[in-house]
């Protein structure tokens, strides 16, 4: 969390040394190939990661996350087709929050379930309640097992909602009030907490401690970001190539 916060603040200690920013958080060492600023670009990159895992003979599986509106990009369709014919170990996870900026999913596509799109490419398409942690877990475990068995990709659609605007400063006024209110009631966090309590997995105190721990981590992350140095201006021309360092203008 602290490296992410530092990156958001453009600090040298951030995941991307302050060069990537909020849209490009990445950590290759953890197998994270980055958030992407180009809607739909990740679908194709997932192909390569899947191919690589298959080629190297590991049991790695590539999990590719994307939004509902990104599935209107050609890349989505090309990637699903190619992953399917090559039986690549990929789980395509669509976080369907029902909006692409101001465009609701019933305006940006003519079908209800993104999951249906899997059929066109011979891929199982599974729609689950995206606010149900356990339902997602179950579907994901199965999709990963399928990928590991060499049976190819799965398209997993998690139905959820975007609570706020698309960006800071977007009031989200295009979202109908009743729709918003109905979804707010389906908040997955209290729902899962209730499940944990009811099944005597965690007590009220455990949950409160967890909450406090998260708050502490967040405060520490903010402090870390605040206290971290900004990048040296000359670093602007580093990391472009593995070997060449471009010239800096002399002021």
């Amino acid at each position, binding site marked *: 969390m602290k490296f992410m916060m530092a*990156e958001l603040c*453009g*600090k040298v200690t951030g995941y*991307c040394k*302050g*060069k*990537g*920013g*909020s*849209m*490009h958080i990445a950590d290759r060492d953890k197998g994270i190939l980055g958030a*992407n*600023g*180009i*809607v*739909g670009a990740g679908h194709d990159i997932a192909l390569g990661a899947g191919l690589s895992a298959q080629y190297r003979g590991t049991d790695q599986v590539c999990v590719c996350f994307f939004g509902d*509106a*990104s599935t*209107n*990009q*050609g890349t989505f369709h090309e990637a699903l087709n190619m992953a399917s014919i090559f039986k690549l170990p990929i789980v395509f996870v669509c976080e369907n929050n029902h909006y*692409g*900026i*101001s*465009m609701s999913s019933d*305006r*940006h*596509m003519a079908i209800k379930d993104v999951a249906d799109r899997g059929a066109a490419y011979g891929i199982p398409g599974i729609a689950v309640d995206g606010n149900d942690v356990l339902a997602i877990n179950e579907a994901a475990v199965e999709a990963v097992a399928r990928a590991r068995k060499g049976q190819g990709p799965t398209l997993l659609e998690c139905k959820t909602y975007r609570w706020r605007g698309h960006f800071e400063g977007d009031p989200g006024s*295009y979202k109908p009030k009743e729709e918003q209110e109905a979804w707010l009631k389906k908040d997955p966090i209290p729902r899962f907490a209730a499940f944990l309590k009811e099944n005597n997995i965690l007590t009220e105190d455990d949950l409160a401690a967890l909450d406090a721990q998260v708050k502490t981590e967040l405060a520490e992350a903010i402090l870390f970001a605040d206290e971290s140095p*900004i*990048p040296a*201006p*000359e*670093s*602007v*021309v580093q990391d*472009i190539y593995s070997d060449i360092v*471009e*010239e*800096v*203008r002399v*002021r």
Partner: protein
Amino acid sequence: MKTMTYGEAIREGMSIRMREDPNVLLFGEDVGAFGGCFGVSAGMFNEFGGKRVRDTPISEGAIIGMAVGAAATGLRPIAELMFIDFLTVGMDQLVNQAAKMRYMFGGKISMPMVVRLPAGAGVGAAAQHSQSLEAWVTHVPGLKVVYPSTPQDALGLMLSAIDDDNPVMFVEHKAMYAMKGEVTSFDPIPLGKGDIKHEGKDVTIIATGKMVHEALAAAKKLEGDGISAEVLDPRSLYPLDTDLIAQSLGKTHRAVIVTEENKRGGYGGEISATIGEQMFDLLDMPVVRLGALNSPVPFAPVLEQAYLPNAQDIILAVNQMQ
């Protein structure tokens, strides 16, 4: 006379033609009731309706391709890409289709389409939302390219871009949308006509887009130091007003070119080469060319500022030419 922001002027240009010609229409991501990611088309959905101001899904290839097909069959579409950076996704439709169709068809078709391309850095939008890619499109025969630097120019060039029977790339700098200026004329500004933004006699600073304002700031400062700099804004990158450049250099004999693009391979290089080839005799010394560093656009503000060319760089360049 009216005071308008750059964004409002672009909107006004589109709206004027849409009121006059039912074949002009606007489409792109979130351009409808939302009014566009930068608010440029705010209110147009209400005025013209969803048939003419249309939200599209996130499909840049299809957005540009739809403009091509519509232009080929009698409409005059304006397609908005939310950021110029997304040209990459629609590049085939632009480069292989829009630009070449008339030629490949032996001149028997026209392609009256405008593609709006919000460009430029300085707003902390990082590597994939801040680029200046005008050289990509100036390189392609069949495309015209304009880049207004003021509300007046934005309005006049938008009118001409819509009126033109060829694909016109309308580059707009996202950090200038809120910039205010006087609009005195509601007439089209012909493509290929540059403008002297500040008169001077010692050196010509040729600048495009937001760099025009850096050049003006530099000229003001240089004036205090006794150097009289002329600021020339080509406004159209292609066609390029070489006559105006020659006229100015005939007076100043010195040229500094400043564009916001990565310097390597930027359109500033084309302007420089044109001067070298056609106006060498007018020059007292080699052309100086400024641009952004040859790096992706970094996120951290300190790095982004290091990346961008600015008035200080121009002043330094001019001082070194004396």
